[in-house]
C-alpha cells in the first residue's frame, strides 16, 4: 500500500501569523485574526469583518526580498513570502538539480491593482505596469522566477474556493506519474474591493465573527493568505535523506452540477469528493481521525457539508472543526492554509477548535469540536468547496 506523496516543506502567511510557527501558536492559543478592515477603503467597512494581514505591500516587498520598483500585486507578494518559507523548510539548495514544477492557485490575481487603477490606466501611464499583472497566472510566473524554477511545468488553477486543494492534488499526481521529482503547490489570494462587494451582493457576509456550524450563523468573513507545500518523490526523499512532514495520502475532486454558487442540499459534490479521496487513499471512513471542514459559516455551505459528512461517515463522524473563525475564508488560498493546519494537527496530535460556536444546528446531531483537543492523529481530511460546484477533498497522513 502506497504511503502517499511526501511533503517536505511548508510555508504560510495569514491573518494569524506570518509563518508556520506563528500560525500554530495562534491556533493553539485561540487567537483569531478577524477584525474590521483597515487597508481597503470601502463603504462596507463597518458592516463586515475580515482576516486581514497586518503588513503593507511595502513591508511585504521587504519580507519577500524584492526591489521597490516592481509590478507585484498583493496576491503575488503574499504568495512569494509563503513560497520562500516552504522552500527553506524543505531545505532546497539547488532548484535545478531535479525536475521541479510549481502549481499555484488564485481567484483574485492582480485584481487588487486593477480595481485601484481601472480608470487611471486610461488617463496616465503612471501605473500601467500593473496591467500585465492582472491575470491569474502572473503571480505564479513571478514566484517561479524568484524561486529559480526555469524551463519547467508551471501553471495556475482557478476553481474558486477549492483552488489550492486542487493544486495540491494535481501536484501529487504529477509526482506519482513521474513527470516531476518535486513540486511546489498551494495558492494565494489578497483582499479586494471586488471580492468584498461580490460576496456582499450574495448576502453571505457576516457583520460579526463567523460562526461555522452554528444555528445562528450569518455568513462568512473574507480573509487573505498564501500557503505552499513542497512535495517530493520517494526517490528524492531517499537520495537526499529529507525529513518528511506528512504525506498526501488521498484526494478527490467532484462537481455538484447543481447551481452556479449554491451547494446541493444533500451535498452531492462534497460526498463524492470525500468518497473519491478515501478510495485513492485506500482508507475506510473509520480511518479518518479529524476533519478540517470547509465550514465557511454560510447558511448553505455548513448545511450541505454537514449532510455530506454524515452521508460518508454515517454513525461514526470523526472530530471535525472549521478553522475559518481564525483566518476568515481565504478563497483560493483556503485549501492551502488548511493543508498546513492539517499537517500541524498531525505533527502535534492536536485538533484545533471550531471557535465562536454556541448553538447547534437543528438539521443534524453532529457538532464541531469546540475546544482544543489533544488526540493521537494518523490521518486528517480537509475539505474545500467552491463556486461552480467545485468540491475537493485532500487526505493527509503521518
Amino acid at each position, binding site marked *: 500500500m502506497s504511503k502517499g506523496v511526501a511533503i517536505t516543506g511548508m510555508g504560510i502567511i495569514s491573518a494569524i501569523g506570518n509563518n508556520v510557527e506563528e500560525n500554530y501558536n495562534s491556533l493553539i492559543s485561540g487567537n483569531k485574526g478577524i477584525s474590521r478592515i483597515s487597508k481597503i477603503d470601502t463603504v462596507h467597512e463597518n458592516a463586515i469583518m475580515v482576516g486581514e494581514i497586518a503588513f503593507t505591500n511595502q513591508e511585504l516587498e521587504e519580507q519577500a526580498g524584492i526591489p521597490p520598483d516592481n509590478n507585484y500585486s498583493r496576491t503575488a507578494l503574499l504568495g512569494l513570502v509563503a513560497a520562500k518559507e516552504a522552500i527553506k523548510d524543505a531545505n532546497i539548495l539547488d532548484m535545478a538539480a531535479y525536475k521541479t514544477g510549481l502549481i499555484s492557485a488564485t*481567484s483574485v490575481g492582480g485584481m487588487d491593482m486593477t480595481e485601484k487603477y*481601472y480608470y487611471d490606466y486610461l488617463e496616465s501611464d503612471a501605473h*500601467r505596469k500593473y*496591467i500585465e499583472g492582472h*491575470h*491569474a497566472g502572473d503571480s505564479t510566473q513571478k514566484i517561479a522566477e524568484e524561486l529559480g524554477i526555469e524551463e519547467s511545468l508551471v501553471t495556475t488553477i482557478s476553481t474558486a474556493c477549492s483552488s489550492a486543494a486542487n493544486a495540491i492534488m494535481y501536484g501529487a499526481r504529477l509526482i506519482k506519474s513521474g513527470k516531476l521529482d518535486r513540486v511546489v503547490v498551494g495558492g494565494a489570494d489578497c483582499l479586494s474591493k*471586488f471580492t468584498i*462587494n*461580490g460576496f456582499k451582493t*450574495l448576502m453571505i457576509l457576516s457583520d460579526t465573527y463567523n460562526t461555522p456550524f452554528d444555528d445562528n450563523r450569518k455568513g462568512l468573513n473574507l480573509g487573505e493568505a498564501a500557503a505552499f507545500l513542497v512535495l517530493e518523490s520517494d526517490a528524492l526523499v531517499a537520495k537526499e535523506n529529507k525529513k518528511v512532514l506528512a504525506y498526501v495520502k488521498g484526494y478527490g475532486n467532484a462537481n455538484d452540477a447543481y447551481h452556479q454558487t449554491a451547494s446541493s442540499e444533500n451535498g452531492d459534490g462534497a460526498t463524492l469528493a470525500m468518497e473519491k479521496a478515501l478510495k485513492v487513499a485506500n482508507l475506510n471512513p473509520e480511518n479518518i481521525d479529524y476533519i478540517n471542514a470547509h465550514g465557511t459559516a454560510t447558511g448553505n455551505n455548513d448545511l450541505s457539508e454537514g449532510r455530506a459528512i454524515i452521508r460518508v461517515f454515517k454513525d461514526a463522524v470523526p472530530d471535525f472543526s472549521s478553522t475559518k473563525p481564525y483566518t476568515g475564508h481565504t478563497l483560493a488560498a483556503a485549501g492551502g492554509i488548511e493543508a498546513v493546519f492539517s499537517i500541524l494537527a498531525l505533527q502535534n496530535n492536536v485538533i484545533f477548535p471550531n471557535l465562536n460556536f454556541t448553538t447547534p444546528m437543528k438539521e443534524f446531531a453532529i457538532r464541531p469540536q469546540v475546544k482544543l483537543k489533544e488526540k493521537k492523529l494518523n490521518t486528517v481530511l480537509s475539505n474545500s468547496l467552491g463556486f461552480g460546484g467545485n468540491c475537493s477533498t485532500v487526505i493527509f497522513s503521518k
Partner: protein
Amino acid sequence: MKKVFINGCGVISAQKTFDNKEFLKEVITYNDRVMPVVNPVYKDFISGGAARRMALGVKMGVVASNLAMKDAQLESVDAIITGTGMGCLIDSEKFLSKLIDNNEEFLTPTSFIQSTHNTVGGQIALGIQCKGYNFTYVHSGVSFESALLDAQLQLSSGEEENILVGGVDENAPHTLEIHKLIKFIKEENTDTSSLLQSNTSGAIFGEGAGFFTLSTKEQESSYAEVVAVETLNTLSKENLEKKATSFLEENGSSIMDVDVIVLGNNGDVDFDGYYNVLSESIFADTQQVYYKHLSGEYNTASSFGFWLGAKILKTESIPEVVKLNQKQTSTLKTILLYNQYRGENHSFTLLKQC
C-alpha cells in the same frame, strides 16, 4: 499506458469553424487590431433561461463543448478540464465598473458570479449533469496545454475514459483599451493576409473556444492520437532547438519524423523570432503551417492550432491558407505544435495519425 485519441472537435473562432464540415475553404480576412468571432446561433443550443446570464465566453464554451461531444457521439464525459487565460472578462468589467461608478452601491450578484474563472467549466457540468473531475487552468499562453496535459495523464493511466478538454477566451472593451495602451495589441490596423510581413510590435487580438473530447477508445471518427504535451514557463532562444529535439526523442519521435510543424506566429516582430529559430534551422525542410492570421492572438488560441493539427491528420490535407512554406510531404503522420506568448509559457504538443 493507454493511447489518447481526439474523437471530437468543437471550435468557435474568427473563421466559420463551428461548421466543422468544411476545412478552411472560405477564409475571412481582417484589416483591424482585434478580430471578432463568427458566432453560431446560440439559441439553437442554449435555452433562453440559461443564456440570459451568459456572456460570450460562456456561450462559446458551452456550445463548443456541445459540438465536440456530438462530433464524438458522446452523451456524457468522465471529466471536464478547461483552460482560459483571462477568464470571464466581460462580466468582470461589468461588475468592476459598476462598483466604481456607483461607489459600491446597488450592485447585483449576477456579473460577480459569472466572473469567476471556472464559470465555463461549471456551466458545462451543469448542462450535461457531469459530477466528475472539473478543473480550470488559468496560466496565460499554456492555459489550454495545462488542461490537455492533465487530461492526457488521466487517460493514459486509465483513470478515465472520456474527457472534455477546452480553451476559451473572450475580449472585453476596457481590457482591449488598456492592452492597446501598453502595445500588446498592434498600434495600426493590420491586414491578416500579410500578418507575418507586418514587421510591427504587438498582435491582432482574437477570441474563441476550442473544445475536444479525448478518449482512450479509438473510433472510426477519431482525428488523431495525442502522444505528448509539455509546457515550460521559460525557454531561451538558445535552448529552443535542443528542447524541441529532446521533446521529440523522449516521445519516440525525431525531427525527421515530423511531417508538419504548426507554429504560433502572431505577427509580433518582437516575439515571432522564437518560431524563426525552429523554422530556419532544424525544421527548415519541414512543412510549416501557422494559424493566428485566422484566429487572432489570445491566451488559448493554441486550441485553434490543436484543431488545425488534428484536422490535417484526419483529412490528410493541408489548406493552402495556412502554409508558411511549400514542402513535399510524402506522409502526413506526425505533427508537432509549438507555441509561446511574449517569450514565455512555451508548449510542445505531439500528434500522430491514428
